[in-house]
C-alpha cells in the first residue's frame, strides 16, 4: 500500500502546486499552460479514485477541448492584456481575502475529516436496480435510467450555452461560418495528424459509446472525442466549418434531446412513466438515445469551441 500512497501523495502535491501556479503566476498564458497540465493530472487522480468514467471525461474534456479553448483565448487576449496583474487589490485586502479563503479551506477540511464513518452510499441500491435497465455500467444506468432527467436537462443546457456563444457575433456575420478556431500556418505535420488521427478517433469514440453500456465510457466521453477529431480537421484546414444557418446542422444539434424526450414521452404509455423504458427494451432504447445524443453533443461541443459566426472571414484577421 505504501507505493500507492506515494503515488497519491505525489498526485495531490502536484495538483496543488499547479493550482498555486495557475492562481499566482503573473501572465495569463503561463497560467493556462499550467491549467492544461493540471487537467492531465486530474485525469490520473480520477483513476486513483476508482472513477474511470470520470477519468475518461476529464481526459477528453479537461485536457483536450478545454486546453484548446483556453490556450486559444489566452493567445488572442495577449495583445490586450497590459499589466492587468498589477491591478490586483491592495495588499491588505489580498491578505484579508487570503485569510478568509484559508478559513474556508480549513472548515471544509474539517468537514471532510468528520464525514460519517460508515459512508452512506447508494451503490448497493444502484446495483440492485441495475438489471431492469439492461446495462452493465452502473454510471450509465444512473445517467440514462435512474436520473435520466438530469442527463436530458444537461444535454439541453448545452444549447443555450451555444446560443450564448453565437450571440456575441456581429449582426452581418449571423448565420455564417464560425470564426474563433485557431488557424495555424500550413504545416505538413499538422496536416498529416489531421489526416491520420480522425479515423482512429472515430473508432475510439464509437467504442466508448457502445462499450459504455457495460464498461466505463459513455456518450459524453465518446462525443468529446468525436468533437475533438472534427475540430482537428477544421484547424488543419482540411475542411471548412459549416455555416451556422445550415438546417442540417441545426437538426443535428437538437435531434439528440428531441429523440430522448420522444422516447421518454412514449414511456408514459408503454412503461407507465415519463422517462421510463418498457420492460425488456431498456437497453436497446438506452443505446439508441446514447447514439443520437452522442451526435448532438459532439456537434454542440465542437461548435462551442468553434465560436461565434464571423461571416466569411475569421474574426481578428486583417482583410
Amino acid at each position, binding site marked *: 500500500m505504501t507505493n500507492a500512497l506515494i503515488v497519491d501523495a505525489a498526485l495531490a502535491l502536484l495538483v496543488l502546486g499547479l493550482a498555486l501556479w495557475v492562481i499566482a503566476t503573473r501572465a495569463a498564458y503561463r497560467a493556462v499552460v499550467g491549467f492544461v497540465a493540471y487537467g492531465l493530472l486530474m485525469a490520473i487522480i480520477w483513476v486513483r479514485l476508482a472513477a474511470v468514467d470520470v477519468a475518461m471525461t476529464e481526459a477528453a474534456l479537461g485536457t483536450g477541448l478545454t486546453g484548446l479553448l483556453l490556450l486559444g483565448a489566452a493567445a488572442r487576449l495577449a495583445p490586450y492584456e497590459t499589466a492587468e496583474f498589477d491591478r490586483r487589490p491592495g495588499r491588505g485586502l489580498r491578505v484579508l481575502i487570503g485569510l478568509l479563503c484559508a478559513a*474556508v479551506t480549513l472548515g471544509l477540511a474539517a468537514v471532510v475529516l468528520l464525514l460519517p464513518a460508515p459512508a452512506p452510499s447508494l451503490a448497493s441500491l444502484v446495483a440492485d436496480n441495475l438489471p431492469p435497465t439492461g446495462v452493465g455500467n452502473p454510471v450509465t444506468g444512473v445517467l440514462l435510467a*435512474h436520473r435520466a432527467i438530469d442527463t436530458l436537462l444537461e444535454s439541453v443546457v448545452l444549447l*443555450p450555452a451555444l446560443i*450564448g456563444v453565437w450571440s456575441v457575433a456581429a449582426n452581418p456575420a*449571423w448565420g455564417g461560418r464560425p470564426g474563433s478556431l485557431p488557424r495555424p500556418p500550413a504545416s505538413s505535420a499538422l496536416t498529416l495528424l489531421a489526416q491520420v488521427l480522425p479515423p482512429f478517433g472515430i473508432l475510439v469514440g464509437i467504442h466508448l459509446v457502445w462499450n459504455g453500456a457495460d464498461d466505463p465510457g459513455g456518450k459524453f466521453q465518446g462525443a468529446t472525442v468525436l468533437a475533438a477529431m472534427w475540430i482537428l480537421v477544421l484547424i488543419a484546414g482540411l475542411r471548412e466549418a459549416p455555416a451556422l444557418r445550415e438546417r442540417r446542422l441545426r437538426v443535428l444539434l437538437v435531434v439528440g434531446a428531441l429523440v430522448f424526450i420522444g422516447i421518454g414521452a412514449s414511456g408514459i404509455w408503454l412503461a407507465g412513466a415519463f422517462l421510463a423504458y418498457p420492460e425488456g427494451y431498456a437497453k436497446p432504447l438506452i443505446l439508441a438515445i446514447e447514439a443520437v445524443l452522442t451526435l448532438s453533443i459532439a456537434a454542440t461541443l465542437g461548435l462551442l469551441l468553434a465560436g461565434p459566426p464571423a461571416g466569411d472571414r475569421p474574426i481578428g484577421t486583417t482583410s
Partner: protein
Amino acid sequence: MDLAALLVTPFARLTELGGLLLVIPLMLPVVGLLLAPLLRGRWLGGGLLGRFTLLLLLLGLVAALAVATAVLTGDEALKYYLGGWLPPLGVALKADGLSAIMLLLSAVVILAVGVYAQREFQVPPDASETRASLVFWMLLMGVWAGLNAAFLGQDLFTLFVALELLTFSAVPLVALDGRAETLAAALRYLLFALLGSVLYLLGAVLFYGTYATLDITLLAERISGEPALPPAVIAAAALMTVGLLAKTALFPLHLWLPPAHAGAPPPASAILSALVVKASFFLILRLWFDVMPGALTPMTAQILGGLGAGAILFGNLVALRQARLKLLIAYSTVAQIGYLFLIFPLAARAESAALTGGMLQVVAHALAKAAMFMAAGLIAKALGHDRVRDLGGCVRVLPLTLLAFGLAGLSLIGLQPSGGYLTKTLLTAAADGTGQGWLGLVIQVGGLLTAAYLFWVFGHVLFGVPSTPAMPIKPPGRAQELVVLALALGALLLGLVPPALFDLVEVGRAGLEASAAVATAMAGAFGWSKLWGDVWPLLVVGLLVLGMLPWPDRPAGGSPRPATTSLSVTGHWAADLGTLLEPADRGLRQWPVAGLSLLILLLALAAAISTGA
C-alpha cells in the same frame, strides 16, 4: 404528443393527469427551445419563431393554471416520480402551493413579455432570421425552462442543472445589444453567478456525503431525525445559502445586478428582474423551509433579515440618486429583494404571515417590475434616451405607458389595494407581533423612499421642460402599451383577489393560514383613517421631493448627472447623503470587496447555523 393532447383535451381533464401533469410545464419550454433553431422565416408579418413562442406560452399558461387548480382543489402537493424510480435513486417532481404560484407567475410574466417582444424582435422582411430574434426567443424559452425546472425539481442536483440552464440563458440576454458595457456586465454576471452555482453544488455534495440522497423530502426526514446538525450539514447550508444569495443579488452581493438589469433590452430586463432572481430566492426558501425546517436559528434569521433591511434602505437610497430610468429601476430591484428576506426573522413565530407576505412580495414585485422595465423601454424607445431629468413632456406622447409606470409604482410603494400593500401590512404586523418593531420601521421607511424616487421621476415627467421633440421617434405599439398596463394593474389589484385563493400558499405545508392572514390584512384597508394614515406621509415626501426639483432653472441641454444643486434644505441633505452613498455603492460593487463580503457572510452564516445545532 403533449402538445396535441393539450390542444384537444378540455382544460378540466388536464387536472386529472395527477402528477404527470407536472411533466407538461417541465417539458413544454424544453421542446420549444429545441425546436426553435429550426423555425426560420417570417409568418403573419413577424417572425415565425416569435409567433411559435407565443403559442407555446399560451399553452404554458394553460398548463400552469391546470397545475394550480389541481393543487388548490386537491389540497395536497402533486408529486411525480420520473421514470418510475423512487428517490433516493430516482428524481421526483413536486408542485406544492409555492411551486404552483411560481409556475403561474412565470407563465403570466413571460407571456406578457412575449407579447411585448413580438414587435421588438420580429424578423425584418429581407431576412429569414436575425441574430437578435433567434437569440432572444430561444433564450426566453431557456429561461422559462430553467425557471419551471427550478420550481418543480425535488432533487438538489436537478435543481443545480436548472440553475445553470437559467444562468446560461439569462447571461447572453444581458449582452444582446453587443456593446462593450453590456458585454462587461454580462461577463460580471456570469462569473458571479457561476461562483454562486459552484458554492451551491458544494453544499449539495456535502449533503450527499452525509445522507447519500439529494431528494428534498428524504433529506428533510433525515435531518429532522438528527439530535444535532452534523458539521457537513452546517457547512452545506451555509454554502448553499451564500451561493444562492449571490445569484439573488442580495445586498451586499448586488455587484452584478444594476449593470446587468439596466443594460439588457427591456423585455429581457423584465424577465431578469421579475423572475430570474426569484428562482434562486425560491431555492433559499426550499432550503430553509423544506430541506431543513426548524434548523433556522435566530442568529441565521437575523443575519438574513438584517441584510434584507440593509438592501431596502441602501437600494432605495441609491435608486434615488440615479440619473437613468433603467438604472433607477434596477436599484429598486436591489431594494425590493430585501423585503423577501425579512420573512426569515419573522418566520419563527409568525410563519403564516411571513411566508404569505413573502410570496405576495414575489408576485407583486414581479408584476410591477416587469411592467416598469417594459414601460421604461417604451419611454426610452420613444424619446431616444431615458435620462430622468429630460423626461419632461413625455406624458403627452406616452400617457398610457406612464400611467402603467405610475400604477406599478403604487404597488412598489405599497398603497391599497396593491400586492405591495398586502406584503407590507402582513410583514409589519408580523414584525410588531414578534417584537421586532424595527423591521416594521424599515418597511415604512422603504415605502417612503420608494415614493420619493417615483415622485422624483414623475416630477420631471409632469413639470419638466420638454427637451425632446414632442412627437415620438417611434410610437409604441398599442399591444405593447396594453400589456404593460395589464401587468401594472395586476400588481395593483392583487389585494382584491379573493383571499381564499391565497390558500394556495399553504398547500403542502402544515399549520399555515394564508387566506385568514390576507383577509385580516385587507380588513379595513379602505377605511378613511387608514387611507389617510397611509397617504399623508407620502404627500409630505412628495412635497419635499418636488421642492428638490431644479426644474424652474434647469440648465439647458440637460447633463446626465443628477441634480446636486437645489434651493431647498432637503436638497442639501440629499446631496450630502448622496456623496456618501455613491462611493459606498461603487466600493461595494468592486469585485474583491463583494468577494470579501461573500466570504464573511459564508463564515458568519456557518457560525450562526451552528449556534443552534
